[in-house]
């Protein structure tokens, strides 16, 4: 296993938001993380991504401990994320957003361009070809992100995360707020990304059709803990999951 998270626990005051959570992900695998609102899914992702510092637990990635590292350090280890709500970055264009991701990659990125001197043409061409075009963003590369529809902003955020060339990608509700058509297109893009880059993907999502068709494996969280883990088909038939998540009386 490439990522092995165990016993991740975080408390806010008296509330245990994530309680002894465990999750693995292997390269080339898309793991879905589902659960009712407030189950602690995003909080768990925030713990792995360095936004929160958990009270307990470990998360080993290729043998290195991730918990407690800053997002900045994590990116250098190949761990990138997307956001549930795309930030309003007024003046930045789609290409600028992608460059932000490339800059976070550090070594190779900053050496090639983005500095005070020299041209960014080469980097722009590379980002457009390898990322923007597959994400259907090439035509809006120079458009300020604020003027784009929500679906394309989410795609731009994904482009930023991918520009850092991650080996572990955490997606926080990548299709939330998208129409179902856009959502399916995004799901296809995510599978394409996995196929092309071979990265491990953890995906927090509510839309069951997308989760079922995209993920290789699904973990279900409720009240801060994992209550089930298995193949998509098994999730739908598990009585406990149906009770907690789908709201059926047990």
């Amino acid at each position, binding site marked *: 296993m490439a990522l092995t998270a165990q016993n991740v626990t975080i408390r806010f005051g008296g509330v245990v938001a994530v309680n002894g959570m465990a999750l693995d992900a292997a390269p080339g695998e898309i793991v879905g993380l589902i659960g009712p609102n407030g189950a602690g899914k995003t909080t768990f992702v925030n713990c792995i991504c360095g936004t929160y510092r958990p009270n307990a637990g470990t998360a080993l990635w290729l043998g290195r401990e991730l918990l407690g590292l800053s997002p900045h350090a994590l990116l250098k280890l190949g761990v990138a994320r997307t*956001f549930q709500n795309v930030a309003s970055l007024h003046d930045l264009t789609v290409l600028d957003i992608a460059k932000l991701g490339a800059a976070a990659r550090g070594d190779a990125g900053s050496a090639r361009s983005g500095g005070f001197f020299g041209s960014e043409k080469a980097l722009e061409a590379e980002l457009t070809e390898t990322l923007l075009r597959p994400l259907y963003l090439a035509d809006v590369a120079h458009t300020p992100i604020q003027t784009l529809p929500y679906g394309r902003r989410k795609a731009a955020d994904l482009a930023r995360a991918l520009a850092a060339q991650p080996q572990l990608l955490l997606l926080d509700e990548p299709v939330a707020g998208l129409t179902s058509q856009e959502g399916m297109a995004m799901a296809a893009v995510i599978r394409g990304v996995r196929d092309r880059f071979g990265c491990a993907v953890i995906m927090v999502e509510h839309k069951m059709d997308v989760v079922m068709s995209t993920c290789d494996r699904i973990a279900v969280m409720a009240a801060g803990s994992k209550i089930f883990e298995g193949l998509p088909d098994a999730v739908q038939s598990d009585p406990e999951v149906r009770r907690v998540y789908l709201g059926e009386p047990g």
Partner: protein
Amino acid sequence: MTLALQLAVAGLATGSVYALIALGIVLIYKCSGVVNFAQGAYAMLGAYASYVLLRAGLPAVLAVLASMGVMAGIGALTERLVLRPMLKAPVVAVMMVTLGLLICARAACLAVFGPDQIAFPPVFPAGAVSAGGIFITYNYIAAGILAAALSLGFLLFYAATPMGLMQRCAADNSRAALAIGIHVSNQVSAAWAMSAALAGLAGTLLATLNGLSIGLADIGMVAFPVVVVGGLSSLEGALVAGLVLGVLQSFTDGLLTPALEDVLRANTGIYSVGALQQVLPYALLVLMLLLRPQGLFGRRGAERI
């Protein structure tokens, strides 16, 4: 020892005036989310208003009350005419507008009353008490007691009356307050009116102690450290921090500065440390921000992504 006591009493008196002004800043911050630079201007305008009314022959009590009324009107007008059209503007723009108000008020007073210090007509009876070797004028006693009483009264009002409760609701969560039927924008206006009235009284009291000039507006700048040390959104904090800072300033001026200058004179070529008591609040402010940024009484907030 008697000197220390004397300094403490004088410090408490000015400190309670600081507290009055700081309370207004906190109140406005709580309900408008703005740090109001014009608070010092309100103090200055209140003092000039009292001056005009006293010179017109009004009895002291009436003159002070009337000037507070005028200031309440000015405060409410500021909110209606200046703040409300700027609801969607960036924070820095709103702060800058209040700074513009300060500049305007200062310039207007300069044009009308001139640049010179004016002797303030007596509000309190002349004379002094001397007890246990310390000597305090009625001015200081009256100003201190009045300011402290009003600050406490205001805290009580805020904590225990129905209108205070509505104020707190509107300040804590304006959307929820709207939902339960509180007229939020009226509450915000009321908060500005009260803040300006308190500042106006503080200005009048300060003028009875130190005389009247447009320099009085600078008191607003001293109030910022008070507010931050107390915790930007804590009324109790503003009161306590005001008193603490007043006393500290008084001791710095009366004890620390002379002692420091003695040492410096003996050992170096420096003869004066200048107005050390004026930078002290800021030094304290920086210290506080680094050690406990939420202030003495503040609470930490969190940001979601």
